[in-house]
């Protein structure tokens, strides 16, 4: 069981992630904005942060950098984003993320790769 923070401004997707991760047996906390997510990360020690990259205010790229800096790289950060154009994956990974999922996600793929990342394997 891991502590997972989901930073996602779309309510439906927030709920989907939440249900999915719960079904996988993880503890999930949701945040709707980057600032909210940042506050959460500062308050609680999370194992994994799943985040959309386009967020109102503080965006995913900046948030990822802050989290990585604050946790000394220990907290895993995975992007779950609708940015799916060529080059987007590279851009996301370069910002420091440990994994990249393009929306729409495939449940089986998501489950297996999230487990891998939580076990310390880097994504691809």
């Amino acid at each position, binding site marked *: 069981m891991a502590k997972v923070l989901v930073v996602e401004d*779309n309510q439906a997707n927030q709920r989907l992630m939440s249900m*999915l991760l719960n079904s996988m047996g993880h503890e999930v906390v949701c945040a709707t904005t980057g600032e909210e997510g940042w506050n959460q990360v500062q308050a609680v020690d999370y194992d994994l942060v799943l985040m959309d990259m386009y967020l109102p205010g503080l965006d995913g790229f900046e948030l990822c950098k802050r989290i990585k800096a604050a946790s000394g790289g220990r907290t895993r950060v995975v992007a779950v984003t609708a940015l*799916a*154009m060529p080059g987007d994956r590279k851009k996301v990974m370069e910002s420091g993320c440990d994994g990249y999922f393009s*929306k729409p996600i495939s449940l089986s793929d998501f489950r297996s790769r999230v487990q891998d990342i939580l076990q310390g394997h880097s994504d691809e």
Partner: protein
Amino acid sequence: MKMRHSYFRSMLVRLLLLAGIPSLVFSTLFILDEYRSGEVHLEQMSRQIHANIVQSSKEGFLTERVRTYLAPLAESALLNPEMQGVLFKRSDGSVLLWQGRGDRAVQDEMKAFRPPGHELVQGKADIAGRTLFFVSGPVMAWRMKGAAELFGLEKKRSDVALGTVTLFATPDGLMRALRARILQSLAVILVFLLAVSVVAYFMARRITRPVEELIEGFRRLEKGDYSPDLSDPSQYELALLVDQFKQTASRLEALMREKDSYSQQLLATAQELADLNETLEQKIVERTQSLENANEMLELSNRRIQEADRLKSEFLANMSHELRTPLNAVIGFSELLLEKIPGPVTPDQEQCLQDILSAGQHLLMLINEILDLSKVEAGKMPLSYSILDVGSLAAEIQTLFKPILEKKDQELLVDIRQARHKVYTDPHKLKQVLINLLSNAHKFSPVGSRIWLGIDRRPGHHVFSVTDEGVGIPEEKQKLVFEAFRQLDGTTSRSQEGTGLGLTLCQRFTELLGGVITLRSTVGRGSTFTVYLPEEPEKALAPSDVLVADDGKGACG
């Protein structure tokens, strides 16, 4: 420089010389002659007077009664103004009587004159700087005879001479007359020469006037007056000259007029040339301007195209992003519910969830195909070539399609004609094309039908064909199937669902790989799509290459 004199002057000099020299010579000769005869006359007269005195002076010598006899003789002789003095000398040489006039010193010298002898002598003597004529002769004692007899007697020296009589005469009168005559002659000559000069002047004028007029004419010619007023000279040669001048002047005038008109033309031409030049420059400027404008327009439209391109890419990215976000929920929840994680679902609900899921996946495919198509059309679709083994490709496809085909009880028959057939291409793109074609075959074929995948090799190219036993495509619509969003019917049944972009992408990918895609179909019997790929990717195929090569059998069973 040689001195030049006017015609008048040289003519005057010549005429004066011609007239003056003979006049002077003749006058001189004439005057000299007159002088000579004057002298002769003076001598004769002196001799006459002397003879008279000698004849009458014997008494005076003998008696020495000078006053009585000799003085009257001398006085009468001196009545003649030319006579200067009479000298009576005794035979011993002493002066008996001197009777003279004029300057005392001259008189003294005359008085001292020594006659040369006892004979009659006549001559000139230099007396006190003056040349005087003298006649000197003896007075004989024995008788008084005539002059001729006296000369005869003189030969007898024994005769007794009483003394001598000497008479002095001056040529002064003669000289005066001479001088007057010279002056006279000179005056006459002078008048004559003056007359000659006047004549010469008028004669010269007859020549020089026309010449001067000609000179003036030339001067005016130089100033552009081609018809100077020239009088006709009377001399033939001058008349010819003037005529010639007039002709030349009029010729010159004609020439000058011609030259002027040429100059005019030349100026006009030069002006025209300058105008043309200006027009040309103007045109060049205009043309340059319009070119620049066109260039600017081109740049502008280029920028617009680039901007449109950028906007299109941006739009596609946004569209992709905005569609994926809700699709994530649609697909994710469908899967979640189908996995019954939130709770159990009824079979009807499960069917609904399945439909939602495939609709979501269909939308996702559509998005991906649109993005692919726009990438191909923007020339930004990357290709990655490698050697593909046909056998493993077929196996992969079969594995992939097995569960799908089973749903419609369809069968995929793979026919590989060449053993160990390998293709150098972009495997991912080729696979995408074949999957697309097979998906279509699956969709448009009835339950329980067969689908063939034929793979062959011909000289220069590889052949991949997908044949089905489906509805077939009418001939008039066969060319439209490769166009985007074209399907056979406006109404699409659930079983014939497609994105409408699949075949378009197949064609684009095949072309990207240097190949050609063709379709043969019969309505009601089925269709065959054939993909031809070149053996060497850089040697792209043309439709004509494969239509000839295709013998119609294909891989169709």
